[in-house]
């Protein structure tokens, strides 16, 4: 590439949609400004400090800004690569596909677009793998696929993964990233996935199998109010937006300015929801420590 072109590369700006009128009630499906943050150009502008970073350096640093520690959103495959031992991931239930049970306006087209843009069939990948040699069941959501919302397929994959861990007695780790909450386009069927996944976790809990939930930016609505907040251990990534009702909806309902840091990782730690905030650099080793504390992988 000629040097001139290199400097012509457009910096990636965070795009914010203009606010829309408050939807009264029914606040689970949260529409957030879509931050297309996953870097794909040569240079990437940091959403935290504004610094332009050489994308290869950013990748080497696990997509954390070397200057300000801003944790970029990462896709499911990148997350799996970061967490698991190389080549150990084996995907399960990959054949499940969303349909359009309600005949909802524009849903099939939206699904198709999400599939093309993300290269994923749905907003979550589930499977088994090894982390520092310890076998586990792993689910990783992808915020880029229809904002990481949960419809029938996401609910079914999570539930099957839990049942798989129940059968095989593997510990379970789910990395949540779902700003879209329960997927509106599948109506009440999406709502039912909250109950289905939570009920499956009830059985896993009775069997004494460890479930670690990792909350990443953003996790809201029906994802937050089901499997994501039911972990035996709940870990947050730094600087994530985590909560039930979206900040815009709250703000427009109560007509007050929200306090700074509202629904941040720190907020959830301080208010007692999360066990810890863990830097991405330490996520893998922290999960390994937790697994060993629970006598997986031979303990110690």
């Amino acid at each position, binding site marked *: 590439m000629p040097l001139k072109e290199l400097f012509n590369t457009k910096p990636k700006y965070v795009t914010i949609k203009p606010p*829309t*009128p408050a*939807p*009264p*009630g*029914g*606040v*689970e*499906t949260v529409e957030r400004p879509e931050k297309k943050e996953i870097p794909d150009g040569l240079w990437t502008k940091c959403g935290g400090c504004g610094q332009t970073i050489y994308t290869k350096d950013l990748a080497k640093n696990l997509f954390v800004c070397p200057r300000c520690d801003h944790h970029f959103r990462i896709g499911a495959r990148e997350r799996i690569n970061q967490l698991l031992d190389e080549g150990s991931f084996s995907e399960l239930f*990959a*054949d*499940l*596909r969303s*349909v359009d*049970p*309600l005949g*909802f*306006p524009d849903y099939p087209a939206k699904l198709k677009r999400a599939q093309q843009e993300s290269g994923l069939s749905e907003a979550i990948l589930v499977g088994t793998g090894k982390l520092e040699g310890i076998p586990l069941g792993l689910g990783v959501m992808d915020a880029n696929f229809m904002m990481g919302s949960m419809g*029938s*397929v996401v*609910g*079914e994959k999570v539930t099957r993964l839990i049942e798989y861990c129940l059968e095989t007695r593997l510990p379970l780790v789910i990395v949540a990233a779902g700003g879209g909450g*329960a997927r*509106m386009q*599948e*109506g*009440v*069927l*999406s*709502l*039912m*996935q*909250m*109950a*289905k996944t*939570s*009920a*499956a976790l*009830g059985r896993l*809990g009775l069997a004494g199998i460890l479930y670690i939930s990792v909350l990443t930016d953003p996790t809201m*609505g*029906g994802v*937050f*109010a*089901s*499997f994501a*907040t*039911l972990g035996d251990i709940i870990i947050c990534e730094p600087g994530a937006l985590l*909560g*039930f*009702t979206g900040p815009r*909806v*709250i703000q427009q*309902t109560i007509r*007050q300015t*929200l306090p700074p840091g*509202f629904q941040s990782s720190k907020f959830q730690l301080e*208010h*007692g*929801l999360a066990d810890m905030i863990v830097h991405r650099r330490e996520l893998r080793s922290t999960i390994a420590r937790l697994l060993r504390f629970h006598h997986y992988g031979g303990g110690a």
Partner: protein
Amino acid sequence: MGNGYTLEFEKKLVELEKKIEELKRYAEEKGLDMAEEIAPLERRAQELAREIYSHLEPWQRVLIARHPKRPTFLELVSFIFQDFLELHGDRNFRDDPAMVGGLAWLDGRAVTVIGEQKGRDTKENLARNFGLPHPEGYRKALRLMQQAAKFGRPIISFIDVVGAYPGIEAEERGQGEAIARNLREMSILPVPIIAVITGEGGSGGALATGVGDRLYMLEHAYYSVISPEGCASILWKDATKAPEAAKALKFNAEDLLAFGVIDGIIPEPLGGAHRDPAQTAANIKRTIVAALEELVKIPGSMLVEERYRRLRRLGVYGTS
């Protein structure tokens, strides 16, 4: 019917009903026999009512479900149960007046009853937060349900809530976790749980007390992942398109029965529950008594197993 609140599509009927009442009063005052004049008008009113209420759009039914005179939790309880004794508090933070629960008799059987209580007027609504629970409301409900399980009492849950409460304090006190915990714990309580959506089944707030062995809906109730207004403002950036969203969301009782989400539809009196609360309550009672007869015969562990199988079936998807 002279209840001081008329929906747009009922206007014609309400006017006719007023006219009939006026005629009757006039006849009584003057001591006249006007039966022959009144009878055809009454017949016409009946026809008109059938015509209007048998062709309601989803949005019109939402308006009926939200009717300010729709029987509230406590009214239904007074019709259906005997000797209701309210129990308060989540043993943790405070007593949430939006979520009511307690002990009651249902035809000689002790049960635990829970439900959201909407207010009848502004003052009551402010006290009850419009029937919108905070996290402590869901936690109170769970405390009472776990108490019921401890003492082997069946649980009856009435649901009428516009949605979870969008507020700062609700987030600070862990609304998401409170809902999630209820879903998980309700799924493993070894006593019968019967839930009835009596009005609004607003998303996570409604689901939080809606996991059970049987789920019924009143005829005009709706149960949705999002309010029609919220859906319209996301889809079309215009909350006034709620009537179209109401259609798209397929959240009426018939839709939910077809999806296998509910077990049955409880009929309402013609025109909606508010036109005859006693009849509405009688219909609910008949349904829950019959369901309970079946459920109490099933051992707790089998109830829990079958409850999981019910949830497990929910969802529609294909394979590649």
